[in-house]
């Protein structure tokens, strides 16, 4: 998540800079959108995964 979001920020910055060739910006755009979808999907399907180092969790968690 952290890496994906950092990547995204860089991609947006490079796209907004506008110094890229059309091919480069299309490639970056595609990668960016894929990352957005990935992060959104992770947030949508977020299930908390709780593990206990002792293997014992209270029943109601």
């Amino acid at each position: 998540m952290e890496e994906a979001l950092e990547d995204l920020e860089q991609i947006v910055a490079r796209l907004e800079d506008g110094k890229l060739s059309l091919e480069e910006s299309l490639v970056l755009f595609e990668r960016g959108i894929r990352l957005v979808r990935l992060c959104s999907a992770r947030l949508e399907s977020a299930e908390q995964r709780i593990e206990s180092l002792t293997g014992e969790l209270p029943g109601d968690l």
Partner: protein
Amino acid sequence: MPRTIDPSIIPLCYNRKPASLVKETRQIRSQTISIHFRPALRDVKYATRLKRNTLTQIFTVSELTERIKERLDSDLRLHDLWARGELSNVVNHRSGHRYFTLKDKDSQLSCALFRNYGVRLGFELKDGQNVQVFGDVEVYRPRGQVQLVVRGIRLDSGLGFRHQELERLKQKLAAEGLFDAERKRSLPRYPSRIGIVTSPDGAALRDVLSIIGSYPARIILSPAQVQGDGAPESISLAVKSLQGRADVVIVCRGGGSAEDLWGFNHEIVARAIFECDSPVISAIGHETDITIADFVADVRAPTPTAAAEMAVPDVAELKSHLDLVESRMVRSLWSSLERKQERLEYLQRSLSARRMYAQLAEHRQRLDDLAEHLESAQRTRLDILKNKLALAESGLDSVSPLATLSRGYSIARSPDGRLILSAEDVAPGNVVELILADGKLKCKVLEKMQK
């Protein structure tokens, strides 16, 4: 008044430790019997006589506590006494009564301060205060508890011994740099593994989990005993167990008395937090409770809930951030496309036939202009030359002999055109030609006169 041993208490002791009592008895017998010891010895004998009865007598709990109570009540030294110690577990009950524990390094005793004595107190009771209390030792029969019923309290000098120790530890760790602001690590913005050190049964854990809510991270619970004996060891072990397993660690427990939170003031807990390889957020007790663990932690949260809020980003915010990022990307791609298209169109326009003709016409006109310029320049130059020529002509006139003739002179020439410069050149009878300004005269020489 000589000391007496209440016979009723002896069988109890005797049953428990007969050997030691026998020994004591023997010792007492071997001593010089003083007036103080005589009644005591008598009591011991009486006690041994009672042994048989004790074995057969079975107390009810009430009888037993009653007996303890009588025993305590009869000891005058347990009444109207002053005792000193440190306050802890202070509870201000709604009823106006106050309950607390008085303790020193090795022991503790429950105390009660009833409302009618408490109103005149003049200061607030706080955990850790060193006090002197005045009152009586009593048995609270419903719980079989020996307690000090306090009728007066005064502050003793200084902090309690535990607080003094705490201050010493704080200074030591501060000197070692464990609390230094420079070593505080910043929290990861999007942790994927969150370690939690707390009691698995506590409300704190539930608070934390409910806040972390739908944020997609792995939560690694490292259970710890957060109060009581063994808590420091348990907490530090739980922190160490998370080594290499978490991006951020939350060490928390819910509110409690200073006593309950004391485990977090221990040096080994501080060191475990200090050595933890990921940033640690501490949230121990309520906002006003600050433990050594809080000082060492990279970030201190006022409550477990707040700790969880610090550990993870808000999911709704994150979603809207992603939406924003997406629209920014789309917008910048579009604007880049538009820019390229505009440029293309511009170039296309430059290449059009009309533009080419226009350019040609422009060139032609420029050529005409240049030709005209050339011509006029040439003309100017010719005029200048002409002027110069006229000037030169007039200069020539001024030196010509013709001008002299107009002033009355004449030129004499022989008929063959030679200039006559001397009278010797002619003889009388010769014909000469005189040139005047406006014509010529043919003349005959009549006479020659020498000068």
